[in-house]
């Protein structure tokens, strides 16, 4: 039986007809009671389960997922990872995440294919260059490896882009973070699931939470499609369905749900080895290791729980791509899809107490929470284990909306990821 993934074990199994591998996680029946319940089997929920067991020794944990793990946004995103945010609170949180990503394949013994190929945000006018310089300076003060590139610097990294003077938006330069990049989204989900399972966490799929049991103002369990399950501490990481859960438990959130769409093309020979985003065109793209172009853009304009694409966004995003890289206009699309994301007024996440005792949140990541999976899980695990905020999560408490201490990252996370 092989539990560790290594070149030696792969070789050995090759000789034995690959018969020695075991499933990466069990599929246990839910028990009636656990120390902690985590709702939502996306990256954030699974990372929470993993760090609860690994960092805090809390292992009597159930993770409940209504469908299959990674079937939400964690398996639907364009996988961009970066930490070039403007405010110090955000930079600290997102950079912890990038640093955790840097060690994650080794930590999980699972290749998450983290590729630090760099991420650039294009500027298209002198005025935008000045704003970019201001942002880059702020980021550098926050300790983030952000740089300002002139046109020539951009051309060196991404010669495929449209540098013509006749372009709809001529390229003046870019904000660039070399440590940014992409990771394999499914692998992040599966790696955390396998890691959590190996500590004894019960990952329970096809188990939808239909109600939250609140007794004397305290959450004490959940009703699910597989029966009632009790725990004194509950963590929720359900992204686009955060308001639906809030309604069940009786707390209020400042969240709107929207579809966010993405596209992947037929595989091509390598043409692009970094990530480029243009706010003006409303498009960003990278190229996966299989050769497909992974393309994304802005939010839908209509609040929705309809998890699918629609034409107005196609026109904007793909029209933008054809202007940004005219030679790609003949490329065929393979697939497109949508995911339901949870958007807050300041484009920053909500981490901490929900307002109902015993129930804690890690949500509101909106269009950009894939990059934050390790940090989000790290924070929620800390809060569930200790009942207290981590110093990095405290600014993201729900109470910031009452105090007026918003962390407005609209410019950083508005559309790019």
């Amino acid at each position: 039986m092989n539990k560790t993934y290594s070149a030696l074990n792969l070789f050995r199994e090759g000789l034995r007809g690959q018969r020695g591998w075991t499933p990466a996680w069990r599929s246990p029946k839910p028990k009636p009671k656990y120390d902690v319940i985590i709702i939502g089997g996306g990256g954030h929920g699974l990372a929470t389960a993993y760090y609860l067991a690994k960092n805090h020794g809390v292992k009597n944990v159930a993770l409940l997922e209504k469908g299959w793990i990674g079937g939400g946004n964690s398996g639907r995103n364009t996988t961009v990872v970066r930490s070039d945010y403007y405010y110090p609170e955000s930079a600290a949180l997102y950079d912890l995440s990038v640093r955790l990503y840097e060690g994650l394949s080794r930590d999980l013994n699972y290749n998450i294919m983290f590729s630090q190929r760099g991420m650039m945000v294009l500027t298209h006018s002198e005025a935008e260059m000045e704003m970019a310089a201001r942002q880059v300076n702020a980021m550098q003060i926050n300790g983030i490896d952000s740089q300002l590139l002139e046109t020539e610097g951009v051309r060196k990294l991404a010669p495929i882009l449209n540098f013509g003077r006749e372009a709809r938006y001529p390229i003046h330069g870019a904000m660039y973070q070399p440590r940014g990049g992409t990771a394999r989204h499914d692998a992040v989900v599966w790696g955390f699931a396998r890691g959590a399972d190996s500590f004894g966490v019960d990952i329970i799929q096809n188990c939808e939470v239909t109600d939250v049991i609140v007794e004397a103002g305290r959450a004490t369990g959940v009703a699910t499609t597989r029966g009632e399950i009790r725990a004194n501490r509950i963590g929720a990481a359900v992204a686009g369905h955060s308001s639906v859960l809030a309604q069940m438990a009786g707390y209020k959130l400042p969240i709107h749900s929207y579809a966010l769409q993405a596209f992947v093309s037929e595989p091509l020979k390598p043409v692009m080895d970094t990530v480029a985003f243009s706010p003006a065109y409303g498009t960003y793209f990278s190229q996966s290791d299989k050769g497909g172009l992974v393309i994304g853009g802005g939010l839908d304009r209509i609040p929705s729980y309809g998890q699918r694409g629609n034409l107005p966004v196609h026109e904007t995003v793909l029209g933008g791509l054809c202007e940004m890289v005219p030679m790609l206009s003949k490329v065929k699309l393979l697939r497109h899809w949508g995911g339901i994301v949870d958007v807050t007024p300041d484009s920053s996440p909500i981490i901490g107490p929900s307002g109902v005792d015993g129930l804690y949140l890690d949500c509101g990541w909106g269009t950009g929470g894939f990059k934050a999976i390790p940090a989000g899980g790290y924070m929620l695990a800390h809060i569930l284990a200790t009942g207290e905020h981590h110093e990095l999560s405290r600014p993201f408490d729900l109470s910031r909306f009452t105090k007026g201490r918003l962390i407005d990252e609209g410019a950083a996370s508005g559309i790019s990821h």
Partner: protein
Amino acid sequence: MQLFPCPFCGLRNEREFHYMAEPGKFRPDTSSQISAEDWAAYLYDTRNEKGRVREIWMHQTCRELFVMERDSVTMNVLGSTSLRASAGEAAE
């Protein structure tokens, strides 16, 4: 592309419309003391329901506000009424 019904102009391209807010909130009286909690709830809390929703929309071409009912999962439009008509309904 979806067509939305403006009560004044009829069916028009969805891009002409802008989502404004959920109805039913009243601006607290700012001439008296308001708690930070009440003010934040007024500014930020949303129901964000899955399924049947009632929302205030603007048809940007004619600048009129109106109430649209729709299903937030299927995206089917279930009805649209002018704000005045819907305020009349609420008063009855």
